[in-house]
């Protein structure tokens, strides 16, 4: 079970305006159980596509390769089945759901996942208690539970709401898609604390970021460099430092 998440030769494309564009071009990535891995890469390298494909977004068509999680063929599963299995994607731009009450949304999601995992569903009272604890922990106002999901939320509030969902859904694989973009230091710390608080032998994470900054708070086990739809280099935390200093150029040249 050391290969918790195993991606092999993954190819994916997107159709836009009648033409298909291949974005993932044979990507290999393995994340063992309990590890936090980081993917860094220039714009357009396919980082976000990878996160969407893993979460099951239908716009992307997988044309080759495989992705297994906990031994299951991830690509065969519906998005909600992946969530039940423990995959959690923190969105780069969390979607607004006008008219959908945040507390109701969270409880429905938590109970759907608990049910699928064979756990007991939470009643309204115990859920609210739990939600209050978690919002307090994230320095979110209780008011946010009463509002519609992400509607009228500031950038920071949206990211906190993503972390809140992550804490409540207790995933075993958290994918953070540039969750750190546009955040101030306080918010950044909250996101990092969210991940760190879940760290343990049964929790892995894939952190997609542009910046070394987040890695001051989340210390990764491995760092991968992604370009042109592939992982072109992998190494320890020192890779991030190197990238910060010298940019992507040397990796791109080495791969070319």
């Amino acid at each position: 079970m050391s290969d918790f998440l195993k991606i092999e030769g993954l190819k994916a494309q997107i159709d836009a305006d009648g033409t298909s564009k291949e974005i993932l071009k044979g990507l290999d990535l393995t994340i063992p159980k309990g590890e936090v891995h980081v993917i860094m890469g220039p714009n357009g390298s396919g980082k976000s596509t990878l996160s969407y494909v893993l979460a099951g977004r239908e716009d992307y068509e997988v044309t080759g390769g495989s992705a297994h999680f906990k031994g299951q063929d991830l690509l065969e599963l519906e998005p909600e089945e992946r969530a039940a299995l423990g995959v959690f994607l923190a969105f780069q731009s969390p979607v607004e759901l006008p008219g959908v009450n945040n507390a109701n949304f969270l409880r429905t999601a938590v109970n759907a996942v608990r049910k699928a995992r064979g756990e007991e569903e939470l009643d309204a009272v115990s859920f609210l208690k739990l939600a209050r604890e978690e919002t307090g922990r994230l320095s979110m106002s209780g008011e946010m539970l009463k509002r519609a999901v992400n509607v009228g939320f500031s950038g920071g509030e949206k990211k906190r709401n993503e972390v809140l969902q992550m804490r409540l859904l207790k995933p075993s694989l958290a994918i953070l898609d540039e969750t750190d973009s546009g955040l101030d230091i306080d918010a950044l710390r909250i996101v990092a604390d969210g991940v760190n608080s879940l760290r343990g032998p049964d929790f892995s994470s894939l952190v997609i970021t542009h910046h070394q900054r987040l890695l001051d708070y989340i210390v990764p086990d491995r760092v991968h460099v992604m370009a042109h739809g592939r992982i072109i280099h992998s190494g320890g935390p020192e890779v991030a430092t190197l990238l910060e200093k010298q940019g992507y150029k040397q990796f791109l040249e080495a791969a070319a």
Partner: protein
Amino acid sequence: MSENSAAAWQALTGRAGERAALLGTEGLPTRRVEAWHYTPLQSLNGIAWQVAPALDDAAVKQRIDGLNLPTHDGLLVFANGRFCKGLSHLPACMDVQEYGDGSAVQPLLAGRFSAGLNAALRQPGARLHVPVGKDAGLIVMVSLTEGNGVSTHLHHSITLDEGARLTLLDIQLGEGQYLTNPQMDVHCAANAHLSHVTKQVESREAARLAIVGACIGERGNYDSFTLNQGGVLARQEVVSQLSGSFSNTNVNAIQLVDGSRLNDLSSMIHHASPDCTSRQTVRTVLSENGQGVFQGKILVDQIAQKTDGYQMNQALLLSEKAQMNSKPELEIYADDVKCSHGATVGALDEDQLFYLRSRGVLEEQARDMLVQAFLLETVELVEHESLRDYLLKALPGHV
């Protein structure tokens, strides 16, 4: 078969006798009549609509008990076009007046077929009067129709004197293949406030041509909300005239259309005085072979400067066979106005759906949640709390 030789027309004009002239047409409106282009009435031609027979009070009472009505201050019951006095009661501050000779088309509703039909075949309905400054609380009116090939044409009139208030829950339901054609005339004097919630859950075989004409005095308010849910072909028509300055009207609705049914919300908001506001939100959810219609006009007279009018209609198509026809319309003759409308038609938002599913919510449940949310935002426009809760319970897949 020409329209005026159809069984329906023969029966209706026969019943109307001398008053048939009030119908103003030579047959049920066809697609060629602009106002009925999306809701033609030919499907009603084949039935010789008869007067609905009286119903037994005990049976009616049973139906009402099953409605789980919210706590109310008064109840008016009509069964097959007749007032059920024994089942009704009203608060002390309010009277029900005798029905007079009301067999003319109200000028406000002139040229509208539903009003012409009502004028020609009119049956006395509620004549409610709330005196100066009184708050009559929440009154529930239930209109029940049962039978096949029968029609009812109740005419209600509601008058609110200066500063009076009333909340009216207007429930219409029934069983069978009938035609119901109620008309309600509303007069809100200065500073009067009528909140009118219509819950239309007629039989799935029924036809319904309902019309409301409201006249609103200075600083008065007519706040209308319709849940348009029943009937094989059902139009709810609201004409709201802002006759006094600084008055306000809301003409909101949700329509839930499934099966092979057609629900239609047609409205005219007439700004006839300066400094008035109007708001309209209409949302339609269509599934199966449902057909939805929205026609909404905002008319602003030359005198109605400083008008503030806003209208939004949105439709959600949940099946390949469903269809929506919308005609939002602005007719504006004053220059210092702020009027806008918006319309959208489409399926559920894929991004929202994916977001919910990625959080573990099952697809079907995610769809329900989004439909719920779509409707919820409109129901929340109803100010009266217990009424709002009552309506929420009526929504499908109640969470």
